[in-house]
């Protein structure tokens, strides 16, 4: 099992994972769960009625907009990186934050590597399950490696053009 890192301000902390990631073929256990989008679409009402916290895994080829009306009831959305080279999850996270206004946890799962940590944070991810054995200190260093950014993204970082006016 990969560790769970979370952003806490400028810091990266190791967090307890209170969610159980449930594969489609497995029965739903007690407690807080992360399920696939398809499972959420068929069983979501029942799961939510159980009073637990629900997270949804979004595969790279799934449209996050399909979750739009359910987002207020979700605690967590987990865009999947099937390979680190597959950049669709960056758009998924960006849309969650910028367009759909999701304020819960956006967790990077799958082929999650520290080289991508900076981009992930800029696209709105605030939780990560690194697959490369990175330490929180390495993760933090990767996030803060660049002193400036040129463009606006889903985070609050001021781009170079606003820094220049300051």
């Amino acid at each position, binding site marked *: 099992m990969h560790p769970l890192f979370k952003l806490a301000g400028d810091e990266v902390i190791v967090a307890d994972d209170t969610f159980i990631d449930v594969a489609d073929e497995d029965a739903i256990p007690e407690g807080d769960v992360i399920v696939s989008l398809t499972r959420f679409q068929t069983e979501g009402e029942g799961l939510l009625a159980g009073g637990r916290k629900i997270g949804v895994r979004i595969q790279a080829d799934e449209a996050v907009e399909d979750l739009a009306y359910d987002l207020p009831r979700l605690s967590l959305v987990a865009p999947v990186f099937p390979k680190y080279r597959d*950049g669709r999850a*960056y*758009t998924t996270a*960006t849309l969650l934050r910028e367009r759909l206004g999701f304020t819960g946890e956006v967790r990077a799962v799958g082929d999650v590597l520290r*080289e991508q940590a900076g981009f992930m944070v800029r696209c709105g991810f605030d939780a990560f399950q690194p697959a490369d054995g990175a330490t929180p200190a390495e993760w933090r260093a990767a996030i803060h490696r660049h002193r*400036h950014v040129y463009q*606006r993204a889903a985070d609050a970082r001021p781009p*170079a053009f606003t820094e*220049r006016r300051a």
Partner: protein
Amino acid sequence: MYRYDAIDREIVADRAAEFRGQVERRLGGDLTEDQFKPLRLMNGLYLQLHAYMLRIAIPYGSVNAAQMRRFADIARQYDKGYGHFTTRQNLQFHWIKLADTPDILDRLAEVDLHAIQTSGNCIRNVTSDPFAGATAEEVDDPRVWSEVIRQWSTLHPEFSYLPRKFKFAVTASAKDRTAAKVHDIGLALRRSRDGTLGFEVMVGGGQGRTPYLASTIREHLPVGHLLSYIQAILRVYNRHGRRDNIYKARIKILVASLGAEEFARQVEEEWAKIDAPTNDLPDTELARIRAAFTPLAFETLAPHAGAYELAKASDPALARFARNNVKAHKVAGYGIVEVSLKTIGATPGDITAEQMDVVADLAERYGLDDIRVTHEQNLVLPHVKLDDIPAVHAQLAATGLASANINLASDIIACPGLDYCALANARAIPIAQHIAERFSDADHAEKVGELKIKISGCINACGHHHVGHIGILGVDKKGEEFYQLSLGGSGAEDASLAQILGPALPANRVAEAVDQLVEAYLRERQGEERFLDTFRRLGMAPFKEAVYAPAL
């Protein structure tokens, strides 16, 4: 050129430091080659047949003298004393040691240069007009917009892991010197009838194994909305471009499979949802970027340059150079001087460290410290006083750079091919050399006139053979190098894709076949027709016969 401020410098320095760390982890054994490969590829470092190749970004093909001298230093210290300019307006060093790359990047950063996004499935170096800021044809300076795109796309968090590499071209003249229609996005600046500046947005062009010309999805995008609109295009592509097959992953395949109209509809729909005011560049920043381009101190000169005219009258070599390599400048008394890197017998695009130093000196002394790289693998001194051209010509001649063959048959584009490239089927450089030798008679070459020959060593088409008036593609036939000829392509404003002439030819037949094609053209041409025009009028038949009939 665009002058970096402290922020631009720190961004480049941070990236160089990041790469140094990655190289150290590789050399120390913390990273395997498999793990390191994607990291080095994000920074332009390829492993080729004989050594590492480092590709350095030359944003929109613009460099100054200090930067050119730095290339010369790097060529001498870390390579074999030369470098290679590519069809992407970049510079490649082919004989690099991995352990040296962090130092090379530091030395580049000292003169505001880098290798960021010169490889990988990200937004690559923006192509622009090598005559920008010098030609009277342009409606605005395309470098300003190229720099806007450069900054926006640098380390873009959402668009650094696209399905495939992504290339922009920005042009602002009626004459297209960027091959905009074979880019993923081609942007043509135009002024509408009411005077507002906008982009014609063309999407989905490309070469490779399935060539396409870009389709126009918007006739007139107001310039202020550039960033939000390209964000919409990139987002549609990032989500829907194919990732299951590397050969179908470019945006051209998405545009072709959806149809340009449907693709445009999806882009417009996405664009409507983007909050344009926060995503478009503020006018203040646009003005800052515009002002950060060094203002040039042109002198007020008479349009008639007496010394230049006299020198041309007495020196036929200079007169020939003037006819072929000097183009009209927007300021009276100045000229745009093209420096050919296609000396007959040499490797197209190659330049020695000594030659780089000479070009740097000339730029500083006579050329307002400005040098451009063209996608046709030549250099340009965009602002030279006409009366200085004799001196510039003499100094170029002394270093072997005065070939008066711009746009002529020996001005050949060729990719590195089997001499360097691990993907190649066949050599491209020796073929280019053999063809060029057939046009070593300068009078003959001028009589033939504009003829664009482009050679690729494999189907990836880095040598742009699809848009050659004569395109030549290296293919492998049972382990032997063969060459497929095609005719009628153009990467300019009259863009078209070349059509296959006939069965592939063995290496020793290629130069002869080009001769036969040219002879057929000379027989058939009417008036001022170029080779391309004659081909377009007559079609394939007379050319096919010229090459294949003698064998029957």
